[in-house]
């Protein structure tokens, strides 16, 4: 049974995405807490900024990669049998794809300020 991003790549992606997401979340938390009167307009302007928009898109792409590697690890460790593993991994990948499409659609809408 073949899995995408086999050993080294998966291990490497897991760490790189983890570091990026940690920085992103600290920044989001810092901005949210340090801004007085954090209104919808401020939030919209902040997330509509091209840099923030791109960083958020990257965050969600990396979240999907990070989740995929983590879930794959859990499945390979705990689930016995190739068939059960294949079915579970297919379901997880479909769910993650749907999640990514939804998130990118929201971000794409935000970048044009049409929400």
């Amino acid at each position, binding site marked *: 049974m073949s899995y995408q991003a086999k*050993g080294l790549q998966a291990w490497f992606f897991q760490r790189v995405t983890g570091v990026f997401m940690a920085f992103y979340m600290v920044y989001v938390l810092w901005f949210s807490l340090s801004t007085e009167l954090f209104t919808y307009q401020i939030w919209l302007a902040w997330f509509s900024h091209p840099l923030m928009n791109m960083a958020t898109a990257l965050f969600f792409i990396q979240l999907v990669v990070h989740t995929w590697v983590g879930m794959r690890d859990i499945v390979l460790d705990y689930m016995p049998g190739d068939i059960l593993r294949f079915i579970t991994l297919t379901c997880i990948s479909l769910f993650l794809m749907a999640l990514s499409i939804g998130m990118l659609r929201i971000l794409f809408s935000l970048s044009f300020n049409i929400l």
Partner: protein
Amino acid sequence: MRFTIYRFNPETDTVPYMKEYELANIEPGTMLLDALLRIKNEQDGTLSFRHSCGEGVCGSDGMNVNGTNCLACVTLVDSLKAPIVVRPLPGMPVVRDLVIDMTQFYSQYRAVKPWLIVKDPIPEIEFKQTPEQRDKLDGLYECILCGCCSTACPSFWWNPDKFLGPAALLQSWRFLSDSRDQAGDERLEALEGPYKLFRCHSIMNCVEVCPKQLNPTKAIGNIKKLMLKKMI
């Protein structure tokens, strides 16, 4: 002192069971192996376990004692909480009582080709190493293949046929870091994939139980770092 020992004879028992033994007059400094030998000699000759050198060199008497893997010959009875519960090393097929079938463990060990691979003509007299090159093998070559580490590793329990386990991977790093070996790329290539190396999640059970105080987790980390270096 009370002992609760795992018993299973496939010729007469359908399921394993725990049997209790009481041992009196245990002298200070008695090792667990000595206590087990006393039980075998004085109370129950059918009790089976492996042992040989009796001083932590041969690695024959690995067993699970009070939930932790150890070598019976270097474990002081005084250091154990009574009742002392003795089981075979976990996750391996039991041949009889505390004797396990190590076939899987040895086949994973063989899979890392634990010998020097040299492509150049072999020197007539000897391979030469600087003291620094030789120092890199310290903490690696001392492994006695007792199996305490691999059988304490959940990843090895879950995928014993695919994950090589800490003992084999420690030996893999021992040859990868040997200046005389010339098959580094092939060795790394053979470890690629989601199972053989990357099932290790660095929980360090192997480090905790190693009776020789070796560090397979660090060796596995070094292999990953070397792979990453080669990739970049």
